[in-house]
């Protein structure tokens, strides 16, 4: 059965994979630039503006520089694991994009191409699974660095990500109760025809948002790399492109979680207050992608905005927030959602 592979489909998917991976890399690259610019604007500064017009070549310069920097592998670290850390971080960051519906179908030389690499029927679980693996890159890298600051960063990352995954999962369950499907594509379709999930699940969205911040190690949850406490946290010992991978994966994670949030709660590629079906399918698809990207950019801006505004938590306060506030809230949200569904379906 498996031999009967549709090679055209394979090719199509392959191209899509390449496009998506490169697009997310490119977006991540420019997210680093955007972060600097946004930080600058929020702080009454100008930000990088010397590399190329408006400093647009800044990320390229950074990347190039990191590539040509000396690689240092600390003496007593396990070399293999030391290299594997950033690689894993990068890999898991990129893998999530596989199940995201980037847009509707697009007609391409008479062929209807689905703008989604794999419409897995358990899509959201896949996302969840990959996200749960993301911590390995940090942990392995931090352990292999053989540095106490790194190790502490790794430990903080591990406990933080596990703790917040729970609340995230529970808040998702409430969402799943409403949608009744695990497929991301179907969720988007549902939202196209009804309300956005954020209207139905405001609390769930809030919890998910907080957990997404935590999973991406962004302020106020950036304890694993808290620069004033742990120097660089888990990537203290990394130099050159391995460091680049870590920094990059953080931005890819941010991008992907923005996409996931937009898809789950904000209708994905749905254009609000507008019926796409009146448009030509290609145009609709492209507009859909634009809509999705707009939402994503808004989320990324939110990520940065929060980062440059509020202080970070202390380790025990972070745990307190996760276990004593978010999880009970998520449980309550789940129960309430269940109750409401039962009441209306009676």
């Amino acid at each position, binding site marked *: 059965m498996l031999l009967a592979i549709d090679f055209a489909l394979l090719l199509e998917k392959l191209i899509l994979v390449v496009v998506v991976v490169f697009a997310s890399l490119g977006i991540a690259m420019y997210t680093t630039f955007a972060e600097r610019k946004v*930080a600058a604007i*929020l*702080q*009454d*500064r100008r930000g990088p503006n010397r590399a190329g017009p408006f400093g647009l070549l800044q990320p390229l310069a950074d990347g190039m520089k990191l590539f040509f920097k000396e690689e240092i592998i600390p003496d007593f670290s396990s070399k293999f694991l030391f290299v594997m850390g950033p690689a894993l971080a990068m890999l898991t960051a990129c893998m999530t994009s596989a199940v995201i519906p980037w847009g509707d179908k697009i007609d391409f030389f008479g062929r209807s191409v689905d703008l989604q690499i794999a419409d897995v029927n358990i899509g959201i679980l896949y996302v969840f699974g990959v996200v749960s693996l993301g911590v390995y890159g940090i942990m392995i890298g931090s352990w292999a660095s053989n540095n*106490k*600051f790194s190790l*502490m960063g790794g430990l903080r990352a591990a406990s933080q990500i596990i703790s917040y995954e729970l609340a995230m999962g529970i808040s998702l369950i409430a969402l799943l109760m409403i949608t009744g499907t695990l497929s991301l594509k179907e969720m988007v379709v549902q939202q196209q025809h009804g309300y956005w999930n954020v209207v139905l699940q405001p609390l769930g969205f809030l919890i998910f948002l907080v957990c997404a911040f935590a999973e991406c190690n962004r*302020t*106020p949850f*950036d304890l694993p790399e*808290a*620069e*004033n*406490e742990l*120097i660089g946290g888990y990537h203290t010992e990394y130099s050159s492109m391995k460091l680049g991978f870590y920094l990059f994966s953080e931005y890819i994670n941010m991008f992907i979680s923005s996409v996931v949030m937009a898809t789950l709660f904000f209708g994905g590629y749905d254009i609000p207050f507008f019926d796409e079906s009146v448009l030509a399918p290609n145009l609709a698809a492209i507009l859909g992608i634009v809509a999705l990207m707009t939402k994503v950019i808004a989320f990324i801006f939110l990520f940065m905005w929060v980062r*440059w*505004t*509020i*202080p*970070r*938590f*202390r*380790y*025990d*306060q972070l745990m307190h927030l996760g276990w004593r506030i978010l999880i009970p809230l998520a449980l309550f949200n789940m129960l309430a959602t269940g109750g409401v569904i039962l009441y209306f379906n009676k």
Partner: protein
Amino acid sequence: MSDHILLPEGSIEKQTTTLNLGPTHPATHGVFQNILELDGERIMKATSTVGYIHRAFEKIAERRPLYQITPLTDRLNYCSSPINNMGWHLTCEKLLNVSTPKRVDYLRVIIMELARISDHLICNSIVGVDSGAYSGFLYVMQFRELIYEIYEEVCGSRLTTNIGRIGGFERNFTNAAFEKLEKFLDEKTGYPAQLREFENLFTRNRIFMDRTIGCGPITAERAMNYGFTGPNLRAAGVDYDVRVHSPYSSYQDFDFTVPVGTTGDCYDRFLVRNQEMWQSLSILKQAYKKVQEFKGAEADIYHADVPAYYLPEKKDVYTKMEALIYHFKIVMGETEMPVGEVYNSVEGANGELGYYLISDGGRTPYRLHFRRPCFIYYQAYPELIKDGMLSDAVITMSSLNLIAGELDA
């Protein structure tokens, strides 16, 4: 488990991790080394090492005439060097029995309070940075630039000001300096508005409050025993302020309060510093008003009339013999210094900044000792952070406002 279990051979009996914070750790803002014994994230023990930028001020001071010591004092607490300068000049004036006109006193008060604000704003915004919020720091730093501009108008330098001379100032305040001061004091666009915004950003933010409340606390008795002075002591609840206790430079003419805290934790220190900035602003306004009240010839007085210690004007040097002689005497450091010893202190940004000057009548001090508040209260740091978390240690460090230059002399 009970104690009859023998630990296996070679097992490490130490339960804690040793973490070396510094001397180049970002949290130390200067150079201290703290060796922490951590149990998880909790600090069990801390040992601090200082002296990484020891520069032998006291030895240098024994080789320099009085006026050359002013640049040295700049480099003690470089966040508020004018206070150090003024303190030094006040000490010299006390030794040389020079009394200063009121206008000089008020101008000094202006400069000193500006320095206090610039110091406190750095300290408080660094507390913000160390707790992870960077923007507030950059917002208030813009006003520190304005303070520096005022210094620059008065003395020509931004940070290590070398401002003032024995008996007064090097030159009169220009109009530009007063204009900038007005700009600084403006309620709408000046520092008060910015400070209010800064407070809004932090003081009632739960994350910040959680981070700072109960972090690095000290009781009034312990603080006193440890030799705390300044805002850190006042945060513990003791209203000791040199400006009130032994007023210098006509501080008794001003109306201000001494903000005190209760627990001496980081939050109290933060609030006390913020309040002190408000008080300084109020003093600045009063002082500026008082300075403006001088009219006519009085408005041009910027130094005491002490030709033996204050350099004559350049044009007099070129023309008058007497002035030339004084000029040479002062520059060569051959002013007549009475034999004696004097201790004088001012309220520095960090606490009581004392100068103990022994003169044997020579051209240089026989011995000059600086009472550096940082140095004295830093020894309480291990006690402050004990049983706290690692993050607490960082934030306590910055809220104590430790200035390495002052600490190590």
